[in-house]
């Protein structure tokens, strides 16, 4: 993982042989944490343009062969940001602290997100951290690694790959009876310096989701969506960003969880796969959100299947606070 291979190894086009890329058009995408969702969206563009009929989209990461925090630091400005930046967790800690102070959110409230997601992960055979017996005490007894983030408020570092095959309408019908159709794909980028604006409420998530909802004909996300796979690098992020995505009012992310709305049995289950808190191979992570949303639409979720899924949301997050939102449905959007 020297400096996230494929940036320094770009001449080698690592992994292309296995992709299988020989003599085919291949584009490499590297957009930080949003890599997986940028891959998903560019795959959509490739087919929606009418140029290609069937596209393969692959996200992968070998995160533990180098220092993830060290590599992430090198993705930022060498003069102004790198000397003090503590990888991804430093800014996420700042965001969690500001969110906590603004709305009075407690560490116990955040711990409930880890408990939900890592116990959900026990139903997902692919997930990295599967913890059916996890408790709030387990999370709260872990060390504070960057106030207010405890170790178990944070996502793991995982290794693995995710591959999706897309097809246009004509080809899709030959391949499967249950395609998962894209209804909307939206991206919102931010300033080069993520700290230009107060970032804790993730304005890019609000902007991308509003545009996606409009395209997909979603008037009330809580009511109109059946499941959401959101990108939550920390437990606090899920509380805050369910608000940014419009599932509830600002400050009420915890209430949404406490009332059971985002639990598996609730009105809008969030992260039945276990989310990023359970599995984080960065280049694949956001693509796994799309894969899991598609799994829900295709009724292939097994123990983690939410009943009667017609519309699903998938989210990617990364870089200097970019967000990508994708909506999928069980019928083409007409």
């Amino acid at each position, binding site marked *: 993982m020297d400096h996230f291979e494929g940036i320094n190894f770009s001449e080698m086009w690592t992994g292309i042989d296995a992709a299988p890329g020989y003599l085919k058009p291949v584009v490499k995408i590297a957009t930080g944490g949003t890599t997986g969702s940028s891959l998903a969206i560019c795959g959509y563009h490739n087919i929606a343009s009418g140029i290609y009929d069937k596209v393969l989209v692959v996200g992968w990461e070998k995160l533990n062969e180098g220092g993830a925090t060290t590599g992430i630091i090198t993705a930022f400005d060498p003069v102004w940001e790198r000397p003090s930046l503590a990888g991804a967790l*430093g800014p996420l800690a700042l965001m969690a602290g500001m969110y906590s102070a603004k709305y009075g959110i407690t560490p116990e409230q955040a711990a409930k997100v880890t408990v939900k997601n890592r116990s959900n992960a026990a139903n997902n055979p692919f997930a990295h951290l599967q913890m059916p017996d996890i408790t709030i005490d387990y999370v709260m007894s872990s060390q504070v690694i960057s106030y207010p983030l405890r170790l178990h408020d944070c996502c793991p570092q995982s290794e693995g790959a995710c591959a999706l095959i897309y097809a246009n309408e004509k080809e899709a019908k030959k391949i499967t009876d249950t395609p998962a159709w894209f209804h909307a794909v939206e991206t919102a980028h931010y300033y080069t310096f993520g700290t230009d604006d107060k970032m804790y409420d993730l304005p890019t998530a609000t902007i991308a989701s509003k545009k996606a909802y409009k395209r997909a004909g979603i008037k009330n996300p809580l009511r109109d969506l059946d499941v959401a796979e959101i990108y939550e690098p920390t437990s606090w992020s899920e509380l805050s960003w369910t608000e940014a995505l419009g599932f509830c009012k600002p400050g009420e992310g915890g209430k949404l969880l406490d009332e059971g709305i985002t639990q598996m049995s609730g009105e809008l289950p969030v992260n039945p796969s276990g989310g990023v808190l359970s599995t984080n191979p960065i280049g694949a992570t956001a693509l796994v959100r799309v894969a899991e949303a598609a799994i829900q639409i295709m009724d292939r979720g097994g123990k983690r299947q939410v009943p009667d899924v017609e519309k699903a949301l998938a989210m990617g997050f990364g870089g200097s606070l970019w967000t990508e939102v994708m909506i999928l449905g069980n019928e083409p959007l007409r």
Partner: protein
Amino acid sequence: MKKLSKRRKSNEEIFEIKWKTDLPYRYSIGKLAVKFFEELKEHRKIMGSKCKKCGKVHFPPRAVCADCLVKMTVDDMVELPPKGTLEGFTVVNYPFTDPSTGGIRPFPYGYGLFKLDGADTYTMHFVNETDVTKMKIGQRVEAVFNDKLIGDFTADIPYFNIIKEEK
């Protein structure tokens, strides 16, 4: 603390070769950043850039206002006081390799998000405090300058102190 992860196989033979890579490189910082460091080094001044169209004051100074797509020059730079207000804080308390030194960055260290007075953008930098109970959003912070200034952001302004200020 109960470990809830899988057992690792410990009797595998590992084939391993060690090697090291040095990657020297140059990095262009732009005309406004050069002016920033000249003013810092020679006059202990902190400079930002002000968009001539929307009036937004940026720190760090940059040549393009992202909101207006207007280009700024050295003449658009304004002085900012070395004081600001803390908007967010944390104490980083885990080991990681610092890519600029190759060694573990000393921890714990205080890290804050604050706006310099007069700036419209926020900035992150070291804060000289490692006890979170002594940090609070809204505290005033002040830049601490090194005695010798060489034209390097963190060497010349190693951290911000939390200060008590009479209103």
